[in-house]
């Protein structure tokens, strides 16, 4: 069922074209199904957006209210009555720190793994693969114990450090697959011109890796931004992140619940914009991150 116009044309050169009407009917059908799918996929977000812009007294009324005077009061309340600002800052600090550190230590490792085949690399890559699939609690519960012992429980530092380690295996695989696409001859040429390994990596290879690094960075940021399990175990009140905040508000009553919805929208809107702007990188990362074993 190739509906790409070029392909249809290529086929049409050889076989008599199918009746025009049938094709357009099929196109309408496909379009209709896709529109419905998109609508279904977006409906939880749309309904949340509606719930949080309703006046508080009708926000969660049953039967639901469909026509109302939109208001942004819940966002104002969220900002004024909760520590949302602090949680947002915490989330961003954790995401930025863990992304930068993960890239700084992941880049040279991934480069080395891409350039030196052999059993040491294979062992490291297999270890990374297993770590990536690990049940989080197997590492996060000991981290909780450790952070208590070290007195860094409930700090953004502890969460960021945990996330650097947890996301390291994924970023190494992703970056290594990108590095592998750069021919070895590039390295050899740079070293012929007098660069050492570090200079080759920093001056020649990394500039070539722009999109790959951006992709890895986007994924690290997204994972840290989304992380709930690690943050809920390692934080209490000071270093709480937005997903944890939203989860704790769920058992609450009306004004708080609507504020949780407002927080969910504030967290969601930037990542939705992101899905459109950085789509190319997300798609590339999902494919390069795959294990080609």
């Amino acid at each position, binding site marked *: 069922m190739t509906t790409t116009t070029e392909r249809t044309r290529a086929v049409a050169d050889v076989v008599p074209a199918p009746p025009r009407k049938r094709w357009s009917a099929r196109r309408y059908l496909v379009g209709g199904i896709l529109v419905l*799918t998109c609508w279904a*996929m977006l409906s939880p977000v749309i309904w949340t957006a509606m719930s949080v812009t309703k006046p508080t007294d009708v926000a969660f009324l049953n039967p639901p209210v469909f026509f109302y005077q939109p208001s942004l009061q819940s966002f104002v309340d969220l900002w004024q009555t909760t520590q949302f600002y602090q949680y947002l800052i915490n989330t961003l600090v954790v995401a930025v720190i863990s992304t930068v550190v993960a890239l700084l230590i992941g880049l040279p490792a991934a480069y080395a793994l891409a350039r030196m085949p*052999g059993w040491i690399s294979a062992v490291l890559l297999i270890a990374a*693969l297993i770590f990536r*699939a690990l049940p989080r609690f197997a590492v996060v519960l000991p981290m909780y114990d450790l952070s208590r012992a070290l007195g860094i429980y409930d700090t953004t530092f502890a969460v960021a450090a945990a996330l650097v380690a947890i996301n390291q295996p994924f970023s190494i695989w992703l970056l290594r697959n990108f590095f592998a696409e750069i021919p070895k001859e590039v390295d050899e040429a740079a070293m012929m011109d007098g660069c050492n390994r570090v200079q080759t990596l920093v001056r020649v290879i990394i500039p070539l890796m722009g999109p790959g690094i951006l992709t890895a960075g986007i994924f690290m940021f997204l994972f840290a931004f989304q992380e709930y*399990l690690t943050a809920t175990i390692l934080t209490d009140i000071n270093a709480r992140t937005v997903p944890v905040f939203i989860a704790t508000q769920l058992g609450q009553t009306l004004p708080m619940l609507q504020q949780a919805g407002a927080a*969910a929208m504030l967290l969601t809107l930037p990542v939705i914009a992101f899905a459109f702007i950085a789509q190319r990188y997300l798609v590339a990362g999902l494919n390069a991150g795959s294990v080609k074993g």
Partner: protein
Amino acid sequence: MRRREFFGFVAPSVLVMAGLLVLPLYQTIAWSLQRVNYGETGTFVGLDNYTHALTDPRFGQAVLFTVELTLVVVATLIVLGYLLATLVNGLGRSRPFVLGILLVSYVIPQVVGGAMFSWLFNSNFGGVLNFLLSTLLGQDILWFASTWPNRIMVALNTVWSMLPFAMLVILAGLQSVPEEVVEAAQIDGAPTWRLHWNVIIPTVRGTLGFVAIISIMDVLRAFDQLIALSPQAVQLGNESVMLYVFNVAFQDGGQQLGLGSAVNVLLIALICLMLYPFIRGIAREARHA
């Protein structure tokens, strides 16, 4: 690349993973053999935690629920992911826009997506879907208080959040199907379903297998969405394995940390077993290099 350089380059990453992944993992294995609480030195109890886990009916129920959820969700993901990828693959200029919309549920944190789903279904909060369904059926479905509706809601939410991943990877697989093969089948007059079943699906079999393995491992670790969607998971028998670990090893002050650790170890063993084909592939590649 010289060996010394290699070690220099991988050292920071290996140190971080050794300190923050291998050591905690070692701790988990040690705890799984102890009766212990946070901040204490435990007492060695041998395999007691394992026998406890394997004979605990609540754990059995958690395993059953997790496996059922995994089977249903992964099968749905493969079928829907393939259909959706095929439709998107035929798109022209509208493709980036449609992909952007379809990616939304992937970038939303799972626990937040779960919260959004709960507002769609919960009659206490005027959930619109629940309202429409109860008007249609003439009776209220207890999405949060009865076992099967709750399972359906959790499964729907899990599919919702993982479908973009499945769709995108399959889409990339579809692009590697040689056009000549498809055209040849079309010239031979193969009907659409035969074209897919006999030509395209066998070609992207590897991709579908990859999506299946990754999704299986992700659903086996289901946790975030249950926090939002199944506050009564234990009473309903809708506790996942990870939620069970959380409940016994953290929630009530870590009373049964050893038990939770034992479950973690069992799950790790299972995951290693499932990763075996990939591990063998990497090892083979290394031998040939």
